[in-house]
């Protein structure tokens, strides 16, 4: 039986006149892993009822080592699909076509179908262009009416250049809420912002696999993680009092994902935010709500955070506001809230710094990336600090004093860009 535990971190004490309430809620799921077969709670989707689709870019630029790596990686991912899962392998270029099962649609995973799928993957050939929107459209049409968790692994090596950005956007919107999509870019000719857009809306991850040799291991890991999730359709329901407005709702760990615009209104005071499928894992969410200021001595429930699984409330956390004239209380900084505010600023500083660098504005780039170095050091985000050190020469991480490197490998810049939204948790 899946069990969700919600823990709220905040300083509920506000000075007179203050309206903004911030809280970090840690949501931890246990018993939600599909590892135990069908042991997940009633109503939970077991992996047997879930759908996996692997879509591989087969445009001309994939020729050579990349397509060989993609075949191998697809085979590795297929091998990790559990029995009973409905799955397909799709080849994507100017259009998309199902290479397995040959009849189109989905196959049911077994030793036999997996072997056939691996053979089909071995025949993937690189030719043609890249129109990712058409791939998403095909997947949507195949999986839209399937029950359970629907997960897609998307691999590309290039820019989405054979369709308009509007077509891609429309395809992303069409897929929203239908399936989750983890995106991988191989090499350095793809566009981080394109894949991030897809992954953000489709509640997935985005990462770079600069060296094709690393692809198979990455695909296998991704598939194994997907197989570990048994709860589809998990939502955060946020109640706020009359007169309140929601400044933002963000997933802040393991990576940053702004959910603010994903609200689905339930009633005037409540709305749902999608969180995708869950296995045994823990995520942090940052809520910022603006409420009507109370008088000193007033206490208010500023938000009620409920986790809704298959229409049932599986856990709750209360976000409070207490107005006080005791400044010792109201000026206290909550560690979690401050930490994730810093992690969000870190991601923004990297994005703005890299953008400025592209535009040739080295002064802004140095300032922003310097600030990023400082924030990464302060928060103990060593992975991001390492990536930053490949783009700038760090003189003093404590003050953020850096110099731009004269030459930066594309791979390093794209890796920093792609992984800038990875956060670390508060070290206790």
């Amino acid at each position, binding site marked *: 039986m899946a069990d969700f535990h919600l823990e709220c971190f905040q300083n509920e004490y506000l000075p007179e006149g203050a309206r903004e309430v911030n809280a970090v809620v840690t949501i931890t799921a246990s018993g939600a892993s599909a590892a135990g077969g069908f042991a997940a709670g009633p109503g939970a989707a077991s992996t047997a009822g879930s759908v996996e689709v692997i879509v591989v870019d087969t445009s001309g630029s994939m020729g050579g080592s990349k397509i060989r790596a993609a075949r191998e990686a697809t085979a590795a991912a297929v091998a990790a699909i559990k029995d009973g899962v409905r799955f397909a392998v799709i080849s994507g270029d100017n259009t998309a076509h199902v290479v397995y099962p040959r009849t189109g649609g989905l196959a049911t995973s077994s030793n036999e179908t997996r072997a056939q799928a691996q053979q089909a993957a071995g025949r993937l050939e690189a030719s043609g262009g890249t129109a990712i929107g058409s791939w998403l459209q095909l997947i949507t049409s195949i999986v839209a009416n399937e029950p359970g968790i629907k997960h897609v692994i998307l691999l590309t090596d290039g820019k989405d250049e054979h369709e308009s950005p509007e077509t891609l956007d429309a395809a992303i919107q069409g897929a929203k809420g239908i399936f989750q999509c983890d995106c991988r870019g191989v090499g350095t000719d793809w566009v981080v912002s394109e894949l991030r857009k897809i992954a953000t809306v489709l509640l997935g991850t985005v990462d770079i696999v600069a060296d094709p040799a690393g692809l198979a291991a990455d695909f296998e890991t991704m598939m194994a993680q997907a197989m570990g999730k048994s709860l589809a359709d998990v939502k955060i329901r946020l109640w706020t009092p*009359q*007169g309140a407005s929601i400044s933002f709702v963000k997933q802040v760990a393991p990576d940053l994902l702004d959910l603010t615009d994903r609200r689905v209104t339930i009633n005037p005071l409540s709305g749902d935010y999608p969180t995708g499928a869950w296995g045994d894992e823990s995520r942090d969410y940052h809520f910022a709500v603006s409420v*009507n200021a*109370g008088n000193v*001595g007033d206490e*208010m429930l500023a938000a009620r955070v409920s986790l809704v699984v298959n229409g049932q409330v599986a856990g709750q956390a*209360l976000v409070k506001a207490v107005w*006080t*004239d005791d400044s*010792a209380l109201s000026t206290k900084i909550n560690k979690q809230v401050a930490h994730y505010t810093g992690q969000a600023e870190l991601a923004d500083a990297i994005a703005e710094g890299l953008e400025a660098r592209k535009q040739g504005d080295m002064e802004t780039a140095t300032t922003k990336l310097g600030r990023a170095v400082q924030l990464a050091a302060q928060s103990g985000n060593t992975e991001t600090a390492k990536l930053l050190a490949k783009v700038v020469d760090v003189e003093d991480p404590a003050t953020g004093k850096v110099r731009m490197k004269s030459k930066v490998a594309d791979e390093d810049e794209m890796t920093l860009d792609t992984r800038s939204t990875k956060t670390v948790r508060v070290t206790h």
Partner: protein
Amino acid sequence: MTTATLCPSCGEAVAEEDDFCESCGTRLHAPPPQEGTCPKCGAPADQADADGYCTRCGNRLPRPTDHIEVEEGGMALVSDKGLRHHRNEDAGAIRATEAFSVLVVCDGVSTTANPDQASAAAAEAVADAVVAGLSGHEEAVSVLAGAVAAAQAAVCNAPVEEPGGYTQAPSTTVVAVVVIGDQLVTANVGDSRAYWIDAASPQACRQLSYDDSLAEAAIAAGATPEEAYGRKDAHTITHWLGTDAPEVTPHIEVVTAPGPGILLVCSDGLWNYYEAPEALRELVAAGPPGEGVLETARRLVDAALEAGGHDNITVAIKALGAPTWAEVPSAPPAEPPSETPTGPVEPVETETPVETESNESEANDHG
């Protein structure tokens, strides 16, 4: 022609006929809050959620401890959260048997975790220990000392973590008075106080407890009361109950009531506004003739609320010897102090006042 009205809470324009602001839900033509409604927005209290918040405006609906009134055995206890604190961190207890009464007031230290639980645990522990101990006819002084030790143990069991709150160990003050006949046995740690309010004479009024505060420490070291109470940290307490308490040795005072009067036990939510025993006497005496103890206690709490209600306010009262509060000229400052204890100005009762040594010295101190 329409007149523009603005919501007093959020400033949005509202129509005259609207009952609630459409923007923020604040009740517009607010009638006095009714029992069973959210005091903030007027929503029926049955709309409260399981956690005690209004499901419309989110306001915390009144908790049972926000305002407490108890009357028992000629005693009354009134406790109120005041106007500036979000919860009542004071607690009190009154118990009576045929042989004795006990009145307890505890004030949870705001800058510690779960002070409301600390004070509640301490008040109950003291009252329970006194009733259990004195019913066995032990000496009141030793029973009270034991009761304070029991309270210390109870406070140490209060939960040490409060999300978002202070991190210091839960702490509270305690003041308890056992009344056996006309004998008043007071024990206290911290700065909650007990006063004898004499019906006959302002000069016979006195504080029975001793503040464990930096102000009193300064006075003991030679400062004048003006200097001592002028300090910013004058009200910082030097002793309390809690796991991190430096030592828990209550001040114990035994006095005999000199005549009819009122025993007043209170938290600093009251005495911050009415500090001098004489000032408290004036307040008590201002009530209508024949006023009951509960009404008197309520009036004292209301007086503190009117004065600002900055802190939680708790008042426990016991009347001794059917006091009447006939007009007594307030202590004439010009009059030289009397060497002998000041007797009743008007002999309203025929009981013989029995003065204690400490009462005499107190009377002398006022000279």
